[in-house]
Protein backbone atom coordinates (compact mmCIF):
# COMPACT_ATOMS: atom_id res chain seq x y z
CA UNK A 1 0.00 0.00 0.00
CA UNK A 2 1.32 3.42 -0.91
CA UNK A 3 2.39 5.66 1.91
CA UNK A 4 1.17 9.23 1.99
CA UNK A 5 3.95 11.84 1.88
CA UNK A 6 5.44 12.78 5.25
CA UNK A 7 3.48 15.41 7.13
CA UNK A 8 0.17 14.25 5.73
CA UNK A 9 -2.71 11.97 6.53
CA UNK A 10 -4.72 10.00 4.00
CA UNK A 11 -8.47 10.53 3.73
CA UNK A 12 -10.68 8.04 1.89
CA UNK A 13 -14.04 9.01 0.42
CA UNK A 14 -16.87 6.58 -0.24
CA UNK A 15 -20.24 6.66 -2.01
CA UNK A 16 -21.79 10.17 -1.89
CA UNK A 17 -18.57 11.63 -0.42
CA UNK A 18 -16.59 10.18 -3.31
CA UNK A 19 -19.08 11.50 -5.86
CA UNK A 20 -19.04 14.98 -4.30
CA UNK A 21 -15.25 15.30 -4.15
CA UNK A 22 -14.74 13.38 -7.39
CA UNK A 23 -11.98 11.50 -5.59
CA UNK A 24 -11.57 8.19 -3.85
CA UNK A 25 -8.71 9.30 -1.69
CA UNK A 26 -6.23 12.11 -1.12
CA UNK A 27 -3.64 13.24 1.38
CA UNK A 28 -4.02 16.38 3.47
CA UNK A 29 -1.57 18.18 5.77
CA UNK A 30 -1.07 16.73 9.26
CA UNK A 31 -1.32 17.27 12.14
CA UNK A 32 -4.91 18.49 12.15
CA UNK A 33 -7.33 18.64 15.09
CA UNK A 34 -10.19 16.27 14.27
CA UNK A 35 -12.62 19.10 15.10
CA UNK A 36 -11.30 21.06 12.12
CA UNK A 37 -11.60 18.23 9.59
CA UNK A 38 -15.01 19.24 8.22
CA UNK A 39 -13.88 22.89 8.01
CA UNK A 40 -10.90 21.85 5.87
CA UNK A 41 -13.10 19.70 3.63
CA UNK A 42 -15.69 22.47 3.30
CA UNK A 43 -13.01 24.92 2.13
CA UNK A 44 -11.84 22.43 -0.50
CA UNK A 45 -15.32 21.26 -1.50
CA UNK A 46 -17.83 24.06 -0.84
CA UNK A 47 -21.22 22.73 0.19
CA UNK A 48 -19.98 19.29 1.19
CA UNK A 49 -20.77 19.91 4.84
CA UNK A 50 -24.51 20.34 4.46
CA UNK A 51 -24.97 18.01 1.48
CA UNK A 52 -22.81 15.08 2.54
CA UNK A 53 -20.83 15.28 5.79
CA UNK A 54 -23.83 15.93 8.01
CA UNK A 55 -24.99 12.34 7.51
CA UNK A 56 -21.52 10.74 7.56
CA UNK A 57 -19.49 8.92 10.17
CA UNK A 58 -15.72 9.31 10.37
CA UNK A 59 -13.08 6.71 11.20
CA UNK A 60 -9.43 7.27 12.11
CA UNK A 61 -7.22 4.20 11.78
CA UNK A 62 -10.36 2.01 11.57
CA UNK A 63 -11.93 3.35 14.78
CA UNK A 64 -15.04 5.53 14.67
CA UNK A 65 -14.55 9.00 16.15
CA UNK A 66 -16.94 11.76 17.21
CA UNK A 67 -16.26 14.85 15.09
CA UNK A 68 -19.12 16.87 16.61
CA UNK A 69 -17.76 16.39 20.12
CA UNK A 70 -14.34 17.60 18.95
CA UNK A 71 -15.91 20.66 17.31
CA UNK A 72 -17.56 21.55 20.64
CA UNK A 73 -14.25 21.12 22.48
CA UNK A 74 -12.51 23.44 20.01
CA UNK A 75 -15.25 26.07 20.33
CA UNK A 76 -15.09 25.93 24.13
CA UNK A 77 -11.34 26.29 24.05
CA UNK A 78 -11.49 29.32 21.78
CA UNK A 79 -14.25 30.89 23.87
CA UNK A 80 -12.41 30.38 27.18
CA UNK A 81 -9.13 31.82 25.87
CA UNK A 82 -7.45 30.61 29.01
CA UNK A 83 -4.52 29.20 27.14
CA UNK A 84 -5.33 25.74 28.44
CA UNK A 85 -5.39 23.03 25.88
CA UNK A 86 -8.23 20.55 26.20
CA UNK A 87 -7.57 16.92 25.37
CA UNK A 88 -8.20 17.27 21.67
CA UNK A 89 -8.11 14.38 19.24
CA UNK A 90 -5.44 15.18 16.67
CA UNK A 91 -5.15 13.55 13.25
CA UNK A 92 -1.47 12.70 13.01
CA UNK A 93 1.09 12.18 10.29
CA UNK A 94 0.40 8.85 8.57
CA UNK A 95 -3.11 8.40 9.95
CA UNK A 96 -5.82 6.88 7.76
CA UNK A 97 -9.12 8.75 7.87
CA UNK A 98 -12.33 7.65 6.15
CA UNK A 99 -15.58 9.49 5.48
CA UNK A 100 -18.37 6.93 5.95
CA UNK A 101 -21.76 7.81 4.39
CA UNK A 102 -24.91 5.88 5.36
CA UNK A 103 -24.27 2.29 4.31
CA UNK A 104 -26.21 0.15 1.83
CA UNK A 105 -24.97 -3.43 1.76
CA UNK A 106 -27.10 -6.47 1.09
Amino acid at each position, binding site marked *: *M*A*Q*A*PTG*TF*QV*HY*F*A*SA*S*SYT*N*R*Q*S*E*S*LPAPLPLGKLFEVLESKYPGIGAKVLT*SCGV*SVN*LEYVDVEEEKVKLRDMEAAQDGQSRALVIIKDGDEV*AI*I*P*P*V*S*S*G
Partner: protein
Amino acid sequence: MGVSTETSRDSYASVPSETKDSTPAHLDRSTFPRTVSLPDERIHIELTYDPLSADTALSYTNSPAAGANVFFLGTTRNTFDGRAVAQLSYTSYPPLALRTLTEIARQSKEKHGLIAVSISHRLGTVAVGEASILIAVSSGHRRAAWRAGEEILDECKAKAEIWKREEFVGSKPEDGEWRANKDWDGEGNLVSHQ
Protein backbone atom coordinates in the same frame (compact mmCIF):
# COMPACT_ATOMS: atom_id res chain seq x y z
CA MET B 1 -12.64 -11.43 -13.98
CA GLY B 2 -10.73 -8.51 -15.49
CA VAL B 3 -8.56 -6.46 -13.24
CA SER B 4 -8.55 -2.76 -13.88
CA THR B 5 -7.40 0.15 -11.82
CA GLU B 6 -7.38 3.69 -13.12
CA THR B 7 -3.90 4.31 -11.84
CA SER B 8 -1.21 1.69 -11.54
CA ARG B 9 -0.06 0.97 -8.02
CA ASP B 10 3.51 1.92 -8.78
CA SER B 11 2.82 5.30 -10.23
CA TYR B 12 0.82 6.95 -7.53
CA ALA B 13 3.23 6.76 -4.64
CA SER B 14 5.46 9.42 -6.11
CA VAL B 15 2.73 11.71 -7.41
CA PRO B 16 2.07 14.84 -5.34
CA SER B 17 -1.16 14.14 -3.52
CA GLU B 18 -2.80 17.48 -4.13
CA THR B 19 -2.49 17.27 -7.88
CA LYS B 20 -3.58 13.77 -8.72
CA ASP B 21 -6.26 11.40 -7.71
CA SER B 22 -4.92 8.09 -6.47
CA THR B 23 -6.41 4.65 -6.31
CA PRO B 24 -6.03 3.38 -2.77
CA ALA B 25 -5.01 -0.23 -2.25
CA HIS B 26 -8.42 -1.10 -0.87
CA LEU B 27 -9.96 -0.46 -4.29
CA ASP B 28 -7.31 -2.46 -6.16
CA ARG B 29 -9.05 -5.61 -7.32
CA SER B 30 -5.85 -7.62 -7.33
CA THR B 31 -5.97 -7.45 -3.50
CA PHE B 32 -9.27 -9.41 -3.50
CA PRO B 33 -10.90 -11.60 -2.41
CA ARG B 34 -10.31 -10.36 1.11
CA THR B 35 -11.29 -12.77 3.85
CA VAL B 36 -11.31 -13.21 7.58
CA SER B 37 -11.07 -16.90 8.36
CA LEU B 38 -11.27 -17.98 12.00
CA PRO B 39 -11.35 -21.79 12.02
CA ASP B 40 -11.36 -21.99 15.83
CA GLU B 41 -14.42 -19.75 16.04
CA ARG B 42 -15.95 -21.19 12.86
CA ILE B 43 -16.39 -17.73 11.37
CA HIS B 44 -15.73 -16.99 7.72
CA ILE B 45 -16.08 -13.51 6.17
CA GLU B 46 -15.42 -12.67 2.54
CA LEU B 47 -15.48 -9.63 0.24
CA THR B 48 -15.04 -10.52 -3.41
CA TYR B 49 -15.47 -9.18 -6.94
CA ASP B 50 -16.25 -12.69 -8.18
CA PRO B 51 -19.69 -14.35 -8.30
CA LEU B 52 -20.71 -15.82 -4.94
CA SER B 53 -21.01 -19.56 -4.48
CA ALA B 54 -23.75 -20.99 -2.28
CA ASP B 55 -21.97 -24.33 -2.00
CA THR B 56 -18.78 -22.68 -0.79
CA ALA B 57 -20.65 -20.58 1.78
CA LEU B 58 -22.44 -23.67 3.10
CA SER B 59 -19.19 -25.62 3.27
CA TYR B 60 -17.93 -23.16 5.90
CA THR B 61 -20.88 -23.82 8.22
CA ASN B 62 -21.34 -27.54 7.59
CA SER B 63 -21.11 -29.59 10.79
CA PRO B 64 -22.15 -33.07 12.00
CA ALA B 65 -23.35 -31.37 15.20
CA ALA B 66 -25.80 -29.17 13.29
CA GLY B 67 -29.48 -30.01 13.08
CA ALA B 68 -30.24 -26.77 11.25
CA ASN B 69 -28.53 -24.88 8.44
CA VAL B 70 -30.10 -21.56 7.43
CA PHE B 71 -28.94 -19.93 4.25
CA PHE B 72 -29.88 -16.48 2.93
CA LEU B 73 -29.11 -15.34 -0.58
CA GLY B 74 -29.72 -11.66 -1.36
CA THR B 75 -30.10 -10.93 -5.07
CA THR B 76 -30.07 -7.65 -6.95
CA ARG B 77 -33.52 -6.40 -7.87
CA ASN B 78 -34.43 -4.95 -11.28
CA THR B 79 -36.39 -1.96 -9.96
CA PHE B 80 -35.97 0.82 -7.44
CA ASP B 81 -39.08 2.75 -6.44
CA GLY B 82 -40.75 1.76 -9.71
CA ARG B 83 -37.77 2.72 -11.90
CA ALA B 84 -35.97 0.12 -14.03
CA VAL B 85 -32.45 -0.54 -12.77
CA ALA B 86 -29.89 -1.04 -15.55
CA GLN B 87 -26.91 -1.91 -13.40
CA LEU B 88 -25.82 -2.08 -9.77
CA SER B 89 -22.42 -1.89 -8.21
CA TYR B 90 -21.05 -2.16 -4.71
CA THR B 91 -18.00 -0.56 -3.19
CA SER B 92 -16.60 -0.97 0.29
CA TYR B 93 -13.99 0.06 2.81
CA PRO B 94 -12.64 -3.48 3.21
CA PRO B 95 -10.53 -3.26 6.38
CA LEU B 96 -13.39 -1.71 8.33
CA ALA B 97 -16.13 -3.78 6.65
CA LEU B 98 -14.30 -7.04 7.46
CA ARG B 99 -13.91 -5.97 11.06
CA THR B 100 -17.59 -5.00 11.33
CA LEU B 101 -18.82 -8.22 9.70
CA THR B 102 -16.58 -10.33 11.94
CA GLU B 103 -17.99 -8.61 15.02
CA ILE B 104 -21.57 -9.17 13.78
CA ALA B 105 -20.85 -12.88 13.26
CA ARG B 106 -19.12 -13.21 16.62
CA GLN B 107 -21.92 -11.52 18.58
CA SER B 108 -24.63 -13.54 16.86
CA LYS B 109 -22.75 -16.78 17.47
CA GLU B 110 -22.51 -15.98 21.14
CA LYS B 111 -26.10 -14.74 21.50
CA HIS B 112 -27.70 -17.71 19.73
CA GLY B 113 -25.18 -20.41 20.52
CA LEU B 114 -24.48 -21.07 16.85
CA ILE B 115 -22.00 -23.60 15.54
CA ALA B 116 -20.71 -21.58 12.60
CA VAL B 117 -21.34 -18.37 10.62
CA SER B 118 -20.34 -17.37 7.10
CA ILE B 119 -20.98 -13.94 5.53
CA SER B 120 -19.93 -13.17 1.94
CA HIS B 121 -20.54 -9.92 0.06
CA ARG B 122 -19.91 -9.23 -3.58
CA LEU B 123 -18.31 -5.98 -4.81
CA GLY B 124 -18.11 -4.28 -8.18
CA THR B 125 -20.79 -4.56 -10.83
CA VAL B 126 -23.43 -7.18 -10.11
CA ALA B 127 -25.88 -8.11 -12.87
CA VAL B 128 -29.57 -7.92 -12.01
CA GLY B 129 -30.70 -11.21 -10.46
CA GLU B 130 -27.29 -12.25 -9.21
CA ALA B 131 -26.35 -12.73 -5.57
CA SER B 132 -24.87 -9.76 -3.70
CA ILE B 133 -24.81 -11.28 -0.21
CA LEU B 134 -24.77 -14.79 1.23
CA ILE B 135 -25.30 -15.61 4.88
CA ALA B 136 -25.03 -19.15 6.19
CA VAL B 137 -25.46 -20.19 9.81
CA SER B 138 -25.62 -23.56 11.50
CA SER B 139 -26.90 -24.54 14.92
CA GLY B 140 -27.98 -27.58 16.86
CA HIS B 141 -31.66 -26.76 16.50
CA ARG B 142 -33.67 -24.75 13.99
CA ARG B 143 -34.97 -21.79 16.04
CA ALA B 144 -31.55 -20.32 16.81
CA ALA B 145 -30.45 -20.55 13.19
CA TRP B 146 -33.62 -18.94 11.81
CA ARG B 147 -33.45 -16.03 14.22
CA ALA B 148 -29.72 -15.53 13.87
CA GLY B 149 -29.92 -15.53 10.08
CA GLU B 150 -32.36 -12.64 10.02
CA GLU B 151 -30.56 -10.70 12.72
CA ILE B 152 -27.22 -11.03 10.97
CA LEU B 153 -28.71 -9.71 7.73
CA ASP B 154 -30.29 -6.75 9.54
CA GLU B 155 -27.02 -5.97 11.30
CA CYS B 156 -25.07 -6.18 8.03
CA LYS B 157 -27.48 -3.82 6.32
CA ALA B 158 -27.27 -1.36 9.21
CA LYS B 159 -23.53 -1.43 9.82
CA ALA B 160 -21.28 -3.00 7.18
CA GLU B 161 -19.18 -0.36 5.38
CA ILE B 162 -20.45 -1.30 1.92
CA TRP B 163 -22.35 0.96 -0.48
CA LYS B 164 -24.70 0.22 -3.36
CA ARG B 165 -25.00 2.39 -6.44
CA GLU B 166 -27.83 2.01 -8.92
CA GLU B 167 -27.87 3.20 -12.52
CA PHE B 168 -31.21 3.45 -14.26
CA VAL B 169 -32.47 2.46 -17.68
CA GLY B 170 -32.65 5.57 -19.86
CA SER B 171 -30.36 7.62 -17.59
CA LYS B 172 -26.69 8.43 -17.92
CA PRO B 173 -24.29 6.39 -15.75
CA GLU B 174 -23.22 9.58 -13.92
CA ASP B 175 -26.84 10.06 -12.86
CA GLY B 176 -26.69 6.86 -10.82
CA GLU B 177 -27.67 7.08 -7.18
CA TRP B 178 -26.10 5.85 -3.94
CA ARG B 179 -28.50 4.03 -1.67
CA ALA B 180 -28.82 4.24 2.11
CA ASN B 181 -30.33 1.22 3.86
CA LYS B 182 -31.61 3.32 6.74
CA ASP B 183 -34.13 4.88 4.35
CA TRP B 184 -35.92 1.55 3.71
CA ASP B 185 -37.41 -1.12 5.92
CA GLY B 186 -37.41 -4.90 5.43
CA GLU B 187 -40.64 -4.76 3.48
CA GLY B 188 -39.42 -2.20 0.98
CA ASN B 189 -41.21 0.78 2.53
CA LEU B 190 -39.69 4.23 2.79
CA VAL B 191 -38.76 5.11 6.36
CA SER B 192 -39.19 8.72 7.43
CA HIS B 193 -36.46 10.24 9.60
CA GLN B 194 -38.27 12.81 11.70
